[in-house]
């Protein structure tokens, strides 16, 4: 599904990402962990094309997408969330999802005018389903800025899912959540997996990572230092040193 080969990004003299190779199979849920500043978010930004890599390639379903602009990649099925919540605060919850919607439904249904002025039947149903999935249907007309923190986190993920992605990049979705919310998140990710979506999960919350992922890759100083099953990673001494040594993790 997704393949990174020799991916590097240098900012001035800093090697934020340094020759990372990673393969994510279709339908897999892969965790990406590492201490703060190890280059996780940079990798996400490179995958969705917010800036060009210094070296290396990004392949999606076998196609080289390294030089494509962001919005084209979104059209090809890459969606993401942000570590610090980013929403269109001045727009309603519904509008946040509506324009982010990127399915075949909204391209074919109804007349041109209907599509541009609203969402015709099937596309509307799709948005409603997504809102219900995230328990946001009662907030549909609320401005995103007026939602509570937990609701905003859910909306952030709902917006990403509205794009109907085949690859979902979750950048620390559990940050700031309480135990109950994390459990809900865990459940939602498990439900999503059944739909066949591929997920790259960046997370500090180890319990969540170990519970839902098939495989975990570990970054340190921009380099991949380990890659394997959750149990294997937990036992890896190099990971323990790099990760547990520098950060207080459950």
């Amino acid at each position: 599904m997704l393949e990174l080969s020799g991916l590097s990004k240098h900012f001035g003299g800093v090697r934020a990402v340094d020759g990372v190779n990673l393969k994510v199979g279709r339908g897999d849920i892969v965790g990406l962990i590492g201490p703060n500043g190890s280059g996780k978010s940079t990798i996400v930004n490179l995958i969705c094309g917010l800036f060009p890599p210094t070296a290396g390639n990004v392949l999606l379903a076998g196609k080289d997408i390294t030089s494509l602009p962001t919005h084209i990649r979104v059209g090809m099925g890459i969606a993401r969330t942000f570590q610090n919540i980013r929403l269109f605060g001045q727009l309603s919850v519904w509008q946040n999802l509506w324009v982010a919607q990127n399915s075949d439904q909204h391209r074919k249904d109804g007349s041109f005018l209907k599509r541009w002025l609203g969402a015709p039947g099937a596309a509307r149903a799709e948005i409603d389903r997504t809102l219900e999935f995230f328990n946001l249907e009662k907030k549909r007309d609320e401005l995103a800025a007026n939602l509570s923190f937990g609701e905003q986190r859910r909306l952030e993920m709902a917006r990403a899912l509205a794009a109907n992605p085949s690859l979902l990049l979750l950048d620390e979705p559990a940050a700031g959540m309480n135990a109950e919310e994390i459990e809900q998140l865990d459940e939602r990710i498990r439900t999503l997996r059944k739909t066949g979506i591929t997920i790259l999960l960046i997370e500090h919350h180890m319990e969540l990572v170990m519970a839902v992922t098939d495989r975990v890759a570990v970054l340190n100083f921009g380099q991949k230092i380990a890659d394997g099953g959750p149990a294997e990673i937990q036992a890896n001494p190099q990971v323990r040193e790099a990760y547990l040594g520098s950060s207080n993790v459950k």
Partner: protein
Amino acid sequence: MIDFVQTTVDGVMVGCSYGLLAIGFTLIFGVIRRLNLSYGPSIMVGAYLGTFLYVQFGAGPLLVAVAVVAGAAIAGIYVERLCFAPMKGGAGVASMVSSFAIWMQLEQAMILLLPRHTYAFPALATGAPWEFGPFTLRPDQLLMLILAIATGIIVNTIIYRTRFGTGLRLVTSNQIAAHLVGVNVRNVMLGAFALASAVGGFAGFLVLAIDQQVTPMFGMWATIKGLIAMMIGGLGSVPGAIAGGLVLGVIEAHAQGLVGPQARDLTAYLLLFLCLVLRPGGLFGKAPEADGAFSSRST
């Protein structure tokens, strides 16, 4: 060749005052990351105050200079208190529009004070132009050059040798860090406005003393020239401001010499436009990052 040198020298003279105007502008922008459109009109307040003293009481150049600088500084503080201090971060556009509203206010207040279109302004120095072989040099222009350089040195000393200057530089490079090490950011901002407007006021005094007349258009003129020189030199850079001013002055002088007065302004704007499109950071500045401080974005 002789013409070329003479024109260049004339351009440098004018460019000095542009440079001073740009220093004031860049100090404000560097500290607050917002555009103060009232910068020129603040200078105009000082200029009109000076002119008022001159026309009504026949004040001499020295007293007029003090009045111009003081008037500009006070107007600068007023603008800071009303348009910049109360605005929360991220309201860069609101601040800018607010400073424009105050521009209108200051301009009308000055027109009420002195309603005629043109008033006389005291000359800096009188005397016949000196001739050096084929070249001529006006004594007042030479005096202006010396005073402009002196002002540049004084501003530089304030920025690099005083406690206030250290705070100013800290705030410019990182506001939050400055706050954390105990710099009173609000006071520094207020001081920056006062200093910047005073420098601008002095530049305004020099320019007006050369022209020996003042009109209500002066406020806009000062804002525009300062803005162009600052953008050419690069935002937030003092050497850049001086360089930008000199470049602007020299190029304007040549454009006027070659084509005519309208080409002078046209060239200045063309230079600015090309500079922004081809090298947005200016001659000395860095390329602009997504500077969230200045945009109409709400979040």
